């Protein structure tokens, strides 16, 4: 079977997801301006420990090999280690994303002692100025301290996870050097206009010239850098980057959010992409296998306005979430289409007086309210 026919097969969906992201809580000590889940405050409806374990039982039955745990800041949950240990004991490996705030020396040793556990520390700049502008004051030192603690505890090759922005694209080589200095693996992913990113995307997303820079850099650094397959829209620039080159939403990818809602991917927390809830009868398995949304995502998708573009086979029309939250039609170009079709459409939208109201907003906002000055 050729690679192309495999992708065709994957587009009709798998019996269970390959890449399942599970955000354990909306609570977070940080308030990153591009947070894809608008996290900050815990939600009262979040899954209990017992409910979370029932989900893990189902994932084990479905033979999900590993899960990507995120948040919010997952380590905020008191049962974080209990759930991770339960998962690993069930044969489900865990990769978790963290800002590192809670990885002190003792936790680092505890994490280092565990099997089948990968850690991604988020960092969006190689210096405090670049990083903290996005992730908040003190977050750079926090992340570096966690990396130092993991290194001291002999954790092994953890991952440094970078969201590519206009401000940090010039630092790609330095990120690589930083990762190498820890014996860590670098992961670079695409910024989406999701969550609070709806409001920060215009200022943060790479310029078109920088997209070329990212593409060339990824081509040069090859398989040593992870990308979560997130840059396939750049394949219109030349030979394909490593990866499957397809949108996996609802087909090989999905998200379970802290309150148990199941979305097509981590970047589309919006009612339109909500397939069901793990608390529904039949649980996650039924949502994955039978929900109307996922069934429709597994049917052939129309190339729409991109059908006549020679690059469509390479870029696949780009990212569904990026289109959706910038107000573009799903069967048209990606807002960051390297040929410029998306930019032209965004300009048209912006020229219309109603454009702002047409842009969908995320389903929920858990941003902490601003601190009020004390009344005197």
């Amino acid at each position, binding site marked *: 079977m050729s690679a192309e026919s495999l992708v065709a097969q994957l587009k009709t969906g798998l*019996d269970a997801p390959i890449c399942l992201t599970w955000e354990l809580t909306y609570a977070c000590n940080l308030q990153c301006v591009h947070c894809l889940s608008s996290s900050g405050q815990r939600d009262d409806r979040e899954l209990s420990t017992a409910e979370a374990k029932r989900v893990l039982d189902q994932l084990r039955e479905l033979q999900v*090999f590993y899960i990507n745990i995120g948040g919010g800041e997952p380590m905020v949950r008191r049962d974080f280690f209990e759930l991770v240990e339960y998962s690993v004991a069930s044969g489900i490996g865990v990769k978790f994303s963290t800002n590192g705030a809670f990885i002190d020396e003792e936790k680092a040793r505890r994490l280092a002692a565990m099997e089948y556990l990968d850690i991604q520390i988020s960092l969006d700049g190689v210096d405090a100025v670049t990083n903290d502008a996005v992730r908040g004051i003190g977050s750079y030192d926090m992340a570096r301290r966690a990396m130092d603690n993991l290194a001291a505890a002999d954790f092994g090759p953890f991952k440094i996870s970078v969201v590519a922005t206009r401000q940090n694209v010039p630092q790609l080589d330095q990120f690589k050097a930083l990762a190498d200095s820890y014996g860590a693996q670098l992961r670079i992913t695409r910024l989406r206009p999701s969550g609070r990113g709806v409001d920060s995307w215009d200022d943060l997303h790479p310029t078109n010239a920088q997209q070329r820079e990212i593409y060339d850099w990824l081509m040069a650094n090859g398989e040593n850098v992870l990308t979560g397959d997130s840059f396939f829209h750049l394949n219109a620039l030349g030979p394909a980057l490593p990866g499957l080159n397809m949108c996996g939403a609802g087909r090989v990818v999905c998200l379970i959010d802290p309150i148990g809602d199941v979305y097509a991917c981590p970047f589309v927390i919006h009612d339109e992409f909500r397939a069901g809830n793990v608390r529904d009868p039949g649980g996650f398995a039924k949502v994955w296998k039978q929900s109307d949304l996922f069934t429709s995502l597994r049917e052939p998708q129309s190339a729409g306005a991109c059908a006549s573009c020679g690059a469509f086979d390479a870029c696949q029309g780009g990212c569904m979430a990026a289109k959706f939250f910038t107000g573009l039609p799903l069967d048209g170009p990606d807002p960051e289409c390297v040929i410029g079709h998306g930019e032209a459409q965004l300009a048209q939208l912006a020229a219309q007086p109603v454009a702002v109201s047409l842009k969908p907003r995320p389903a929920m906002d858990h941003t902490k309210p601003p601190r009020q000055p004390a009344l005197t």
Partner: protein
Amino acid sequence: MSTDLIAHPLLAAALELHPQVALRPEPFGALAYHYGNRRLVFLKHPDMVAVAKALGAHDTFADALAACQIAPARWPSFSKAFASLQESDVVRARIVQEGVG
């Protein structure tokens, strides 16, 4: 002369599925996940899955192919595919204990 006509060196090898590999059936064949090196590999045909599962029970890779009724014309492509599975450590050479029993 086509290289296909020369027997692939892997055919005589004793192989086994790596004990840290889990196979999950899928419509196209199976997904193989290696819990050690965290690699996810696609077995792109149900016959590949059958052979992968049979490896440990046969003296050689060729015996496993024959037992799974894989037509000899397909052996070269199976050899290539399993050589690549061996590279990603999904299957590995099995230590055959001589003179036991």
